[in-house]
């Protein structure tokens, strides 16, 4: 048992680190704050520049074949790159949905011509992709979606509405799951397409989030016409295509474990700096017990990731158990930031520069609810663990054999 790299892994790590040192600045405690203050346009510009550099070196997608612009590397090398990159102050976030979920789906279901056309620009950050699945009436139950695609000669015409589409407002392309047949059971009448977000009839309207940002959007489709060549998979087989996307999503979200926001280190720093009625918070037994509780969650998750990495390193594929990452980290972020604001007590709800740690805890407290919902809610992830890991029976379903058009609906 050890945490050491193999000889090949160590060599790759050294190579990656040398490249990062030559091309980026080390991360400091201030980098996160600076980034949080940057405008979206500036952040996007910076991210695109970095992505182009990374892609030119093959590091944008380590495991993809060289032919499409990857490095042809192993999952372990990808993890190593991620670990090293995290030590540097480089922009992240804009390309994850596209490269982590959309493009792998496109690559699996489209023609060589389309692959040649779309993969490279996505890798180099020239074109950004978004995921158009959720709708007002279809989130957890995404197969309940209503956006229609109707055949018209060699084209399809799309009408309907998507919602919560992250990054749609700066995206160039998207993959969109539609209903092509309402008279069969809901999973059977779906078809997947990709389309340009600049297509006539696509209307993107940002939605303001509880944390004040507006990174997700409503997207309206009004007679949007796209050619059949942009269909992904067979007509009526859209659910199978979507499962490919969702599998990639779980890996991305589970593996990365959120990774953002203050954690135990920051909590200890806060406890040191905070004076309670009977002395510094760090000397308070109740505070110390909480710190210990959070610490074992953080560490347990970190070492669970190491166990997954070990499996990867031996060539095994991680299963649905990777779902535990997001459950643990999202709930912990919410609980920990809640606790931190309570430590700050009567001033704990002040935000921004006037707040302790520049308001990092308050900011994360307002983001945490989104993390518990995005990419599969806590409840859906627990269903997955119960059914696919523990092998418990599937839920009783009210919608199983009914045609989509006959399903009961609510708000």
């Amino acid at each position, binding site marked *: 048992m*050890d945490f*050491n790299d193999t000889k090949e892994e160590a060599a790759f790590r050294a190579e990656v680190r040398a490249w990062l040192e030559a091309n980026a600045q080390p991360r400091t405690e201030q980098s996160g704050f600076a980034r949080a203050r940057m405008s979206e346009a500036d952040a996007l510009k910076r991210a695109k520049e970095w992505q182009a550099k990374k892609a030119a070196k093959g590091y944008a997608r380590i495991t993809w074949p060289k032919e499409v612009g990857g490095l042809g590397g192993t999952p372990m090398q990808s993890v190593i790159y991620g670990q090293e990159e995290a030590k540097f102050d480089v922009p992240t976030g804009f390309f994850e949905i596209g490269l982590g979920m959309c493009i792998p789906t496109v690559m699996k279901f489209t023609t060589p011509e389309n692959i040649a056309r779309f993969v490279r620009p996505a890798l180099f950050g020239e074109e950004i992709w978004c995921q158009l699945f959720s709708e007002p009436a279809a989130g957890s139950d995404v197969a309940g979606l209503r956006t229609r695609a109707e055949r018209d000669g060699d084209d399809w015409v799309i009408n309907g509405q998507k919602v919560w589409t992250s990054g749609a407002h700066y995206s160039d392309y998207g993959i969109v799951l539609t209903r092509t047949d309402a008279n069969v059971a809901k999973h059977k009448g779906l078809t997947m397409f990709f389309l340009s977000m600049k297509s006539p009839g696509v209307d993107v309207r940002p939605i303001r989030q509880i944390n004040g940002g507006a990174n997700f959007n409503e997207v309206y489709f009004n007679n949007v016409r796209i050619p059949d060549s942009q269909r992904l998979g067979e007509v009526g087989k859209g659910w199978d295509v979507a499962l490919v996307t969702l599998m990639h999503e779980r890996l991305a979200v589970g593996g990365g474990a959120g990774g953002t926001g203050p954690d135990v280190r920051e909590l200890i720093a806060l406890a040191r700096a905070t004076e309670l009625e009977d002395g510094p918070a760090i000397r308070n037994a109740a505070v110390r017990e909480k710190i210990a509780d959070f610490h074992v969650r953080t560490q347990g998750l970190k070492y669970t990731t190491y166990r997954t990495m070990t499996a990867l*390193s031996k060539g095994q594929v991680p299963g649905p158990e990777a779902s535990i990452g997001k459950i643990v980290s999202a709930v912990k972020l919410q609980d920990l930031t809640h606790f931190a604001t309570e430590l700050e007590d009567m001033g704990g709800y002040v935000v921004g520069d006037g707040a302790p740690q520049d308001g990092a805890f308050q900011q994360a407290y307002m983001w945490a609810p989104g993390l518990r919902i995005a990419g599969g809610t806590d409840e859906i992830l627990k269903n997955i663990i*119960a059914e696919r890991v*523990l092998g418990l029976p599937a839920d009783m379903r009210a919608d199983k054999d009914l045609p989509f058009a006959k399903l009961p609906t609510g708000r």
Partner: protein
Amino acid sequence: MNFDFSDDQKLLKDQAQKFLAEHCPPKAVRRILDGEDTYDRALWKRIGEMGWTATAIPEEYGGLGLGPLELCVIAEELGRAVAPVPFSSTVYLAAEAIMLAGSGEQKKKYLSKIASGELIGTLAAAEGPQPLSPRAIHATLKGGKLDGTKTPVIDGEIADIAIVVARTSDEPGERGIGLAIVDLKGAGVSRKAVKTLDPTRNHAAITFKGAAAEALGAPGTGYANLMRVLDRAAVFMAFEQVGGADASLAMARQYAIERYAFGRQIGSFQAIKHKLADVYVNNQIARSNAYFGAWALSTNAPETPEAAAGARVSACEAYHVAAKENIQTHGGMGFTWELDCQLHYRRAKLLGLAIGAPRVWKEKLVAHLEKKNAA
């Protein structure tokens, strides 16, 4: 990155699991629960023959000279089986203390007998319902004579020797505390059975009246050595707890699949599914923390105290939750003496307290974190 046990260690674990499934079924545990004996003698003898007690003892003292990792995989299986044998007391506590602090002569005298399974040992630290601290130690060791009462002492009625924590001088704090090895069959030792929440392991109150005691370790080092022994034991016990927690989850899962209510399997109710998913997540977190503890022991890492405390805090929580929710999942059946759910509920309590409650270990953990993150 190789954060996993080796193939050989996994093989050992499989063998241990099969062996215990055959020789330590719940029926065997219940024999002890029902008071038919103080421990499973036949199983203990077999365990000695298999060399498990010899695992981490160096070859020069009759051991196998394997490391803590091998001991961890065995511990997990003993925990899964709720084995009613004095393994933790003899191996994680007594043998480890002697390996850590014993003289060459003491090692020769005791370790080979522990390795062969002839000798049962234990640690006598507690003096009633309170956490361990130098102030809580009233037993005295003076001129090779021990006086005082220790209770509860795990496996206290059946142990041959005890490592006793006693006051050696009036110096305040840790420096006034020493360790001694005491022959529990010698003069001046009287033992009385103590009933605990886990009757599948024996417990006693031991009173010493001028009992002969040989000092273990240099004067003034007793308390520090004790802490190191407890750190190591915390990791081994965490593996027992992880094994027990997994077994509890497996029981609950099985019952949830077999039991019907309202015309469906209870495992199809989301309240049950989510409960068991939570248990699964907890168990995984505890397992990963225990692995880190194992790594720390196996490499003598400076992080050992922190890793041990993390493993213990996490494992105590996981086993407690898994054991109680296993009963809950079984409904009324779970509350019956007849079912085996109680075995885990009881053992989780024993393991969660025997070397100090989680509260104490959380405090240790944070003290280490503070040092590490010192400004």
